[in-house]
């Protein structure tokens, strides 16, 4: 990377309020393996301080998808031979038809749901457990938790959420679901092996006999920009930056995100002006340019949003 060159910095251009690379790498869509569905838009029951799309109870930037919209996307995905599906938001369990959405998606392939777990009550946990057992395809629940103590987690996810999330995890475990605990590295030390091992032990202590953990690097957009910092102007990708074999490992070489208002390259970019690929599903099938600042994080840290 040589992004500190003066001529590059001067060549930075603006698209809306987003800083974009003047000479970004191109990325082909190898195959549409993964379809993300922003089922509840940017609506969430909580408002985490690191949320890269600033979700919350009042954020209507992206609205909930209707059942018809999800059905239409699934139909298009079937034509493309999509291999796996992800529900995110916002909080997917805010959707009034979430069970129907899960059912119709699992008829077609494996599904991962990204959730904070708070809205998963006993009845929902029992239904999810039964659905998991019945489905020929895998159903994964990815529950976000950002610390092994209430002060650590609640500082980021909101007062009282630690206990509520743990209650949701325990309900899932009681019903035979082994959730993937997703931890955003909100403190640098969370990336260290010792701290990760300690977190693993903490998860095991919750009654999860086969603990599954996924650590995610924060993206410096949305609310995270205020909690820590935003991207610097030189944190952008330029043509030639990708290492041999890297393109295939970037999730956006094989995924697209559908929201209520169109198609985007990936879950990170739905609020970035200029990143929208179009209204129709087919608009998302063309190559993309890695012009956006979050692309820099995926490149540097090898981040994938996959489970």
């Amino acid at each position, binding site marked *: 990377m040589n992004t500190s060159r003066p001529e590059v910095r001067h060549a930075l251009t603006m698209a809306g309020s987003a800083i974009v690379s003047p000479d970004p790498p191109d990325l082909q869509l190898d*195959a549409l*393996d993964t379809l993300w569905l922003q089922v509840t838009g940017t609506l969430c029951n909580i408002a985490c301080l690191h949320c890269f799309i600033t979700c919350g109870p009042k954020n209507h930037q992206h609205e909930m998808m209707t059942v018809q919209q999800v059905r239409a996307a699934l139909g298009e*995905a*079937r*034509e*493309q*031979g*999509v*291999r*796996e599906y992800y529900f995110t938001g916002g909080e997917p369990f805010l959707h009034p038809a979430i069970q129907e959405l899960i059912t119709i998606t699992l008829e*077609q*392939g*494996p599904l991962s749901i990204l959730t904070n777990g708070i809205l998963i009550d006993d009845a929902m946990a029992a239904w999810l457990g039964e659905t*998991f057992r019945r*489905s*020929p*395809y*895998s*159903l*994964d629940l990815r529950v976000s938790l950002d610390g092994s103590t209430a002060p650590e987690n609640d500082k980021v996810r909101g007062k009282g959420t630690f206990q509520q999330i743990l209650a949701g995890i325990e309900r899932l475990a009681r019903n*035979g679901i*082994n959730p993937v605990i997703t931890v955003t590295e909100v403190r640098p030390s969370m990336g260290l*092996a010792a701290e990760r091992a300690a977190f693993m032990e903490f998860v095991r202590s919750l009654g999860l006999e*086969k603990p*599954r953990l996924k650590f995610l690097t924060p993206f410096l957009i949305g609310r995270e920009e205020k909690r820590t910092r935003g991207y610097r102007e030189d944190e952008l990708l330029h043509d030639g930056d990708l290492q041999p074999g890297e393109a295939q490992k970037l999730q956006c070489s094989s995924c697209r995100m559908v929201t209520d208002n169109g198609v985007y390259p990936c879950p990170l970019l739905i609020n970035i002006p200029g990143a929208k690929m179009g209204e129709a599903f087919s608009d998302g099938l063309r190559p993309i340019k890695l012009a956006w600042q979050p692309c820099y994080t995926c490149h540097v840290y090898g981040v994938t949003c996959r489970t």
Partner: protein
Amino acid sequence: MQHEQESSTGAKTDTQERYRIAVFGGCYNNYLALQATIDDARRRGAQALYCLGDMGGFGPHPDRIFPILWENEVMCMQGNYDHSIGNRLADCACGYTDPRDNYYAQISYEYTLANTSDRPKDWLRDLPPSIRLELANRRILMVHGSPRRVNEFLWESTTPEQFLAKLFDDYHADMILCTHTGIAWQRQLPDGRRLVNVGAIGRPPNDGQTTVWYALLTIYQGRNRVESELLPVAYDYERLAYEMRQERLPEEFVETVLTGWWTTCLEILPSKERARGRF
């Protein structure tokens, strides 16, 4: 576990035209299971033997695999492990994403690299990446992981029908045989096209049993009909465990051989497959 693929005439079988082939993969240095699999396949009338790669890893004494493959004229192709060992690379390129999985994978890789002679290494390096056959008017494609990537995992619970249909279309096949996951399964599409993951003969499939699995295809040439059956094989797993301990391989690997439960490579398992295991 058996599937049949036949022409619309629904013709009855004709043993006069019957031709059997055995297909296995994932030997993982388990020369005892390899010999047992070949013996079982021969007893069942297999006239040809195919190996879908990954000769090394996990078990003891890598060099003991090769004479068995060569003497029995097993037609072999290259897995990711074979590519790495053959080219003397630094790791197995197994496709794991979890640090613990990679830690154990590296132990077995370094052991296998250090204990494989040069001649087998060169042979592994030169193996073909896939095998194509046409039998009973079926285009049969043998690969290691998937037709598109040597280390892609095709699990039963994460390989939906429309994705399979795309693979059959894109790679011009009516039947795909693969390995790499270590767990055998098969699925036939409504149009008759079929994927058979032949499993692995080097390690039990996380089912609490000590047996390993392979596939037997029965081809009825004149009838446009292919049957595929997944079969368990027993072998001297206690001897394997003893030899693994003698070679100071990780006790976690030995435990898997003795109990049939995976203790490593767990994070790559989809939730359905993980739920069936003990760990």
